């Protein structure tokens, strides 16, 4: 009985999440609505740079780094990088730093997920805008 109740509540909750309630469908602004299923979306990578070393080597992989499916390997400036990558895949990033005699490899990863939301008669595609943080900890 309790289990059924929880399932019903979850179903109602999820239904509400996947259906965006709009009061005025005729004047709705669809400029933010991506009606085509996207093949790629933006992944943000945050990393550290210093005045002495303004470029940081980043290695970006499909899956985990141990899987060796390297997508990009390059040095980037400015501490933040936005890449358009294929959706519904897991990406991991290694950032390479040198602090005095120690080599530090910062690792992080996220899955780039997309989903659809019904708005009036249209379907809009959203993604989770993943942020991969390989900044050095303080």
């Amino acid at each position, binding site marked *: 009985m309790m289990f059924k109740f929880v399932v019903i509540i979850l179903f109602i909750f999820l239904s509400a999440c996947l259906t965006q309630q709009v009061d005025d469908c005729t004047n709705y602004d669809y400029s933010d609505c991506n009606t085509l299923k996207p093949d790629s979306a933006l992944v943000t990578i945050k990393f550290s740079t210093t005045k002495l070393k303004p470029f940081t080597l980043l290695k970006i992989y499909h899956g985990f780094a*141990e899987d060796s499916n390297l997508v990009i390997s390059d040095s980037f400036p400015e501490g933040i990088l936005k890449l358009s990558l294929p959706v519904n895949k897991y990406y991991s990033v290694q950032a390479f730093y040198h602090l005095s005699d120690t080599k530090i490899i910062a690792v992080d*990863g996220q899955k780039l997920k997309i989903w659809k939301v019904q708005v009036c008669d249209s379907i809009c595609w959203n993604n989770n805008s993943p942020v991969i943080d390989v900044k050095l900890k303080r």
Partner: protein
Amino acid sequence: MLFYCFIIPVFGQLPDEDQKLLQAAYEGNESKLLQALINKADIEAVTDKGVSALIYASQRGFDNIVKILVYNGANISHTANDGVNAFLAASMLNRISIADYLLKSGADINSVNKSGAGALHFCAAYNYDSLCRFLIEKKANPEFKDIDGNTPLMIAAFSGNNTVISILVEAKAQIDNPDKNGFTPLMASINRGYLNTAQFLIRQNANVSAVNNNKLNAAGIAVLSDHLAALPLLKNDLKKTDTAAIDPFRIAYAKMDINAVRKLKKAGFKSFDKVLFPSFFTLVGLNFNADHLLFNFKAGVHEVVNNFDVFADYQVRLFRKKIWVNVAPGVEYQYWESRSFAGIGISKDFFPFGEKNKHLLFLQTSFSYSYGNFRATYKKAESFFVIIPAVGLKYFIDNSSNIQFVLSYCSYQPNQIFPLHLGINLQSYFPFSNKKLPDLYKLKQKHIDWLY
């Protein structure tokens, strides 16, 4: 108050001389009273509440006025609208000389008001021991009951008037004479929290095992009315406990009153349910320091006699934390680590502020297995066992829940997470019983309508 109608005289639309008579009786003004009588005032004139001049004078303690009125033929038996006559009015305010005079003039010593309360009831309620002795000497009936079945002894016990109780007991009043709901004087005194009275009644061989119409015995009433200090008075007679009574433990469980369960156990009561650990508890909270935040869930059992908890707990870090892992000399990996702790522990409560205080201290230790994982790698975070000692303060919000402030020490991953953690938790006890619990709303407490 029963005699409210006497406080402010309301003479209504009476003839002038009758008003003067009532006014004079109320004020105790003899010359004015005599003048009213000379002027043919009606000696039986009454206010709109039915109060006569004799009742006023008796209640206000004007002996001479009473004598003048009786001498002039005032009706001693006249009763006001609430059934109070001159003798009862005098008794209510401890006017012994007037009561004596009225009795000698033919008043009925066992007269009662509309609630069935007589002079002995009043002296029992207001602790008029001299009047009580006087009435007993004059052969007032100590077993006389009001309309709810309350004897004077019941009234005295309900009011905690021990001197009057001893006078009534000397007069051979029945110590366990119950009211219509089956309450005995002992139950009434416990219900009202008069422990000296309860002790006195027990010394007079009051039956601690008596059961009222709601199947409550004295211990059950003590738990129901939160007068737990009475429980040790009753413990010596446990063997007499009538199993027809509701188990006092079940009343405590129904109230979710862990303190009552503890006091019952300490007083030597045995639950019919034979529950080893009488309460289950859950706890939710947060542990934190500058480095990270942990959600804490705990469940266990509480042992009430020695005040300790045995529990299983689970803590999980709410946000991942950047951790450095040394993999080779001069090479460190920085990962986002999640971490959990699962363990068992024991906690003991101490009462440095007194057992009645809402605050208490506790010491706790748990033995936990800690495990975690890193994001974006197959590598596993380090797993280890750790002992986590803690000290804390509990503040009881009510009888079954408390807020805890905890300082714990959890040493792991040196130099990366500060070992001291502060915690804030909410703990809730759920006393359990394997039998149906009584409906507290149906369990009546002792009440006397006409009193107070």
